[in-house]
């Protein structure tokens, strides 16, 4: 299981600052979150970024995640 840290207001909505998901890559992580945590669905639909061990990923499903990885959900980033 991977511990996934939620950002402040998302944690408020989920009632927890962390949730656990069975995942070995980004794709599995996103699917697991969507399936198990309906409260996250609106944010997932709007798009999110994910920090894995301090690096920020937007899209790449194949990005590996180790069981002890630090995984933090982020709101989707845009630039200028």
């Amino acid at each position, binding site marked *: 299981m991977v511990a996934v840290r939620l*950002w*402040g207001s998302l944690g408020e*909505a989920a009632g927890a600052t962390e949730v656990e998901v069975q995942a070995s890559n980004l794709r599995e992580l996103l699917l697991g979150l969507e399936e198990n945590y309906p409260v996250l669905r609106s*944010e997932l639909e709007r798009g999110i970024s994910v920090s894995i061990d301090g690096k920020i990923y*937007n899209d790449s499903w194949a990005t590996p995640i180790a069981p002890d990885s*630090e995984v933090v959900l982020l*709101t989707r980033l845009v*630039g*200028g």
Partner: protein
Amino acid sequence: MAKDEYQAREFKVIGTRPIRPDGIDKVTGKAQYGADMSAPGMLWGAIKRSPHAHARIVSIDTSAASAMKGVKAVITRADFTHQPEDKANADVLDNCMAGERALYDGHAVAAVAATSKSIAAAALDAIKVDYEVLPHVTDVDDAVKPGAPIIHEGRQRENVPEGHNGNVISRTAFGHGDPEEGFKKADLIIERNFTTAATHQGYIEPNACLASLGADGQGEIWVCTQGHYMVRNVSAAVLGLDAGKIRATASEIGGGFGGKTHVWQEPVALKLSQEAGKPVKLVLNRDEVFRATGPTASSSADIKIGMTKDGKITAATCTYRLQSGAYPADNAMLAAMCGFAPYDLEHVRTEGLEVVTNRPKAAAYRAPGAPMGAFPVESVIDELCQKLDLDPLDTRLQNASREGTRAVYGPTYPAIGLEATLEAAKAHPHWTAPLGDNQGRGVACGFWFNFGGDTSVSLMVNLDGTVSLAEGNPDIGGSRAAMTMMAAEELGIPLDQVRTFIADTASLGQNENTHGSRVTYAVGLATIKAARHAIEVMKQRAAMKWGIDADAIEWKDGAAHPAGDNAGKFPPMSIKEIAAISSNTGGPIAGHHEANPEGAGVSFATHMVDTETDPETGAVKVLRYTVFQDAGKAIHPDYVEGQFQGGAAQGIGWALNEEYVYGEDGRLQNPGFLDYRIPVASDLPMIEPVILEIPNPGHPYGVRGVGETSIVPPLAAIANAVSRSSDVRLTALPMSPPKVLAAMKAK
């Protein structure tokens, strides 16, 4: 975790300052920008805009305009028969052409195409629009008050708690620890409200395009934009067309800074062309650029920071309200993520509220939201230092984020370069230079995320051994030079043997916008990998000629060499020689790379500025300015320096004089460069760029994006300098002379 891309090496080309490949065209007037292209049979487009901040469109009578000689098409929202399902695209459509309501002064309500500019202008005058004027709100703090006119019913996201009115579209909160506990440990707490005005990117080239669309849905668009793929994709979605049937070609782009990362008028040009059956050129004028293309959000922030006597920040909170204009955006969220990112805080909480108002849709301006995030934070830290008699650089170093720090937005930082910029600032002669009367020195830090995104590059080895490199990102400030250099470095050939082109949307796969400080990082990475791919192919071709295994060949100095004596004795085979036999060895030689690289890494900067305040008029003069920022690896240092200098200059304008001024009637009062006061040459000193090079592990050469972070620190750096030169703390931007003088008089 993905493996590091970075490998230390000696460079031959990288880090030098060659003349940019597109340079001659740009100093001789040959380069073609958005408005410079024409087509046979071309018509001139023009847009009629709402003079009201908020109004119901009762009716539009286009009959007189349509009847005019030379008028070939007149369109209103009724002509856009496709309604996009996606909310963001539906907003783009509504912003390009108002539906039931005009939501801001300058909102498009109709458009024409005519055989001349003057006929098009006359036709706009002939269109009669009947408006029912509605109550409006343009100020972010007014918009969140009970009883404010609500801009959109039913758009509030589920993440907004009870108690906020409908103009608060979204709420996002970040942080960790327990700030209330932290504040108890503070010796001094400062709590204040800060505001920033909306500013425009102020690119000198007005938005422009030349569009052609047939009844069969096949079309072409020539457009000045930061992303021609984005323009194609969004325009197709808005009009209900197949993206693949439209080819978008990027013109040269005369500045963007985030403002050209959106679609503002291209679907209108395409629709006019389809109606008229002819190509249509649609060039906005400056007034339209200010009124109808996205400026930044204005902001209001309530901040509270506690510090101990010896400079430790014990807790911090900040609520940011950013007005996103007439349509939802995510700027407050970014402010709430970025403001405290430079600091290692045990107890921190931020929240960002996205607020809609009757203003043009806000867009990014370099690092979106980050300057508004940093201004209150860096101002209050400085004020704490002043009141506690602490050194502002040492105090920042003491609290600086470093490897292992948990960021306010959640993750634990890997190795980052903030401390390096602070140490460089401390060691620089600027820090200890003497100051005169009414002069002060300010410092501030800034943070921005960089990112990668979809990238597609092709590298063609031509029959004569020269190289054509195709990339899909408009060159906004020297990126052709950077790509050419990376390709030449990797291939081991002279720079003049490579020419880089910005390909149209039919020639390469999807490319993300030129934004997010991504191009030198992501397109550079793809360029290097495309070159490596081509090298692999060339090694195979040489292997075939020599009758040895490709693994027994190494590539150096632009040629295939046998790898050691065991591989056989062959003279090196140059790229030219390999290209000459390509038809005999398997056909054309090309390398390509398609990826979504995600190792951009985050970026920090520290800025230092000296100002002098005129005690009698409140005028602030910038005397000296130094930028310290990590570039990872500067490919072409001139253009890295240019990004540092340009961002700082824009921040200076934001800090001192630039603002959107709205009247009671909700109309923009200063939609021109006369009264929207961007810095002129005589306003500024030289801006010294100090490039730090701490390699980014996510790029083969260590490149880190540099385009955006430089606009983050100046707002507070200048406020801090003004505070130290005139003993007043300005909390509302811009720090225009009337505000500074009033503050000094109130002291």
